[in-house]
């Protein structure tokens, strides 16, 4: 697992990554098998809740640690500007398929 940009936050970051990865592996597989829309939606809602319950606490700790470093390293203003320029709150349209 990759390190955090702030060495002091690496243990929390890796704990969070492990939590997410474990959760994520169980997210995709049954989703693909669940064909009906109703059961799929129920699955997403349940998994979103589960993610928060399992990884929410360590995520908050990790973010609290990271925020100081983001300020210290001068990343914050760059990030703010990038977010204003490209909010990317939703996925951009699909790339056109290249003709072979």
């Amino acid at each position, binding site marked *: *697992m*990759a*390190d*955090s*940009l702030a060495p002091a*936050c690496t243990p929390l*970051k890796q704990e*969070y*990554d492990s939590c*997410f*990865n474990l959760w*994520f*592996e169980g*997210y*995709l*597989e049954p*989703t*693909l098998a669940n064909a009906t829309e109703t059961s*799929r*939606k129920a*699955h*997403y*809602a349940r*998994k*979103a*809740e589960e*993610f*928060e319950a399992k990884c929410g606490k360590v*995520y908050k700790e*990790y*973010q609290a640690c*990271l925020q100081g470093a*983001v300020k210290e*390293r001068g*990343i914050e203003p*760059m*990030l703010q*500007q*990038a977010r204003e320029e*490209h909010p*990317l*709150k*939703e*996925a*951009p349209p*699909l*790339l056109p*398929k*290249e003709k072979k």
Partner: protein
Amino acid sequence: MHFFSQDYTLSHPWSHVVIGMWHKYPNAKCTHVISVDVVDRSVDPKTGIIRTERILGCKQKAPGWIVKVFGGSEDAFVREISFVDPARQTVDITSINLSLAQFATCLERIQYTPAPDNRTTFAQTAEIQARFTAWRTAADGLERWLVQRFEQNAQLGKLGFTDVLRALEQRQTAATSAA
């Protein structure tokens, strides 16, 4: 502006590729990426779409003059926003440089979509664009500074030379009256 694009097929099913993307770093072949941090993540309980915003720290091997001229440091940061859509089976990743973004932007997009025979299509595009207004501002600033320095130095040069000439004149006058 420069465009770049490439497509290829990975011999792994889509779900494996998507799991793999969270395990890409550290990578012996991409040692320039030295840190990866999640700064924002949400799971939409209705659509199932996972949006993740990350900051990748890179050791850039920029030519020395770029670092000197643009005042960058050895560390460069990239912002990456990904969308994993389990229902549509698409992954969309956009990456933009944070460092030196006032001078040029490199916007990369990657998509992973399922391909026949349990394979995955990888599609990548990139746009590299210099910001001419920023260059203009920087160039104008440099020009103003150079003009100011030149004017100051020209003025000082004039004063300095006048002093030298006056001293020379005084010495000559003294020599003449002594003779």
